[in-house]
């Protein structure tokens, strides 16, 4: 375990580990899609992330080229910076997606409540008393369908 011996050895070993890990990541994503736990849209996202890591693992100079380009002295810092930026954008995206889901859930709940009320009223009318000819069914206006188009 002299430093000299480690010099070349650890570098390739780290590289090897990185390659294996990214390949595993890739496989995991595909397996998740196969089991229908992940839709293709997000799979593509993670697969491109895994691909980027894979390229960095194979082509070691790329990181240095990149850091030079960004004007960052230590290549590792460039990696952290980029990774941080990517994760930031991802999280933001997920926040947007979650907000949309919340919105859609709210609309669904309102629709269910409306249908439930309507159903009760109709049933009450049906079960005799016909007394209160509750206002005739009128078409409900479309729920202000929040602009939740996917993508």
């Amino acid at each position, binding site marked *: 375990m002299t430093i000299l011996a480690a010099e070349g050895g650890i570098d390739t070993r780290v590289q090897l580990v990185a390659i294996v890990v990214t390949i595993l990541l890739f496989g995991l994503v595909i397996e998740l899609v196969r089991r229908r736990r992940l839709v293709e849209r997000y799979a593509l996202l993670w697969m491109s992330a895994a691909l980027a890591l894979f390229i960095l693992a194979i082509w070691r100079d790329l990181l240095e080229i990149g850091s030079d380009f960004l004007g960052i002295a230590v290549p590792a810092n460039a990696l952290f910076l980029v990774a941080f930026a990517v994760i930031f954008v991802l999280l933001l995206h997920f926040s947007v997606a979650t907000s949309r889901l919340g919105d859609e859930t709210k609309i669904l709940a309102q*629709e269910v409540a409306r249908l439930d009320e309507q159903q009760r009223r109709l049933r009450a009318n049906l079960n005799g008393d016909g007394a209160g000819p509750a206002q005739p069914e009128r078409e409900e206006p*479309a729920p202000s369908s929040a602009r939740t188009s996917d993508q």
Partner: protein
Amino acid sequence: MGRKSLPATHLGATLRAMAAEQSDQLRKLAIVPAYNEEGMVAKVVRDILSADPTFDVVVVDDGSTDRTIAEAQATDATVIRLPFNVGIGGAMQTGFKFALNNDYDVAVQVDGDGQHKTEYLPELLAALNTEGQADMVCGSRFLEDPGYKVPIGRRIGNLIFSVVLTLIVRQRITDPTSGFRMTNRRGIELFARDYPHDYPEVEAILMLNAHRLRIHEVPVRMNARGFGRSSIDYPRSAYYMAKVLLAIFVGLTRRRPVPVDDPPDTPGGESVAPGAVAGASADPAAQGGGS
């Protein structure tokens, strides 16, 4: 569920005569997915009914923000209103579920933008019946002259999918992205249970293939998409290609593309009359295994 097997008198008839006779009794549904199509949707419904008045029409409004619903309700169509936009795949599946729940034997997709020419409905129907071998009939633009100028990007994308699908399905598929399709009861059952989320056409063909349902293409012409937004522009087409190709190749590694297996003896569309009774009794079990 309450589908009765055909009267025994039909058994002696030739296939063709049987098919012709059947088509009068079949319950047929046209599914019109519409997203902000206030200008076209009513015309599409009228065209369907004038092309073949024996069709029932259901308009699936995919969370439109314009007057699509009002326009559709002014016609003879049933209108299903989705509370928000779920995409074409979800909208079509809504239609298939409606078809399943209301015991339709035939369902055809006719897009609400007027791209699909309803005058071909009888031809699709005839192919579905007389081919006898087809569970889904697709209107293909590329078997003959498409009738309009298909943008070059679409042509290339279509060609790639066409080659890949033809190899997998072992049958020539010329227009895998065509949405102008008619399917029988077996297809309805399959799609009601599972239908791809976005850009569903290509994957739907693979699903049919995996379930041993047969596909037949019929040449049709289509109208060029009206002015305005085409649903697939350039930034999206890359995603389209990647998504569908990923789905195709992942789909190949799945044993079954649908989580739930077929019930052992589904009443197989129109053809399997004797099995229908047994199939009906097996149904509750099949429903229970749904989750």
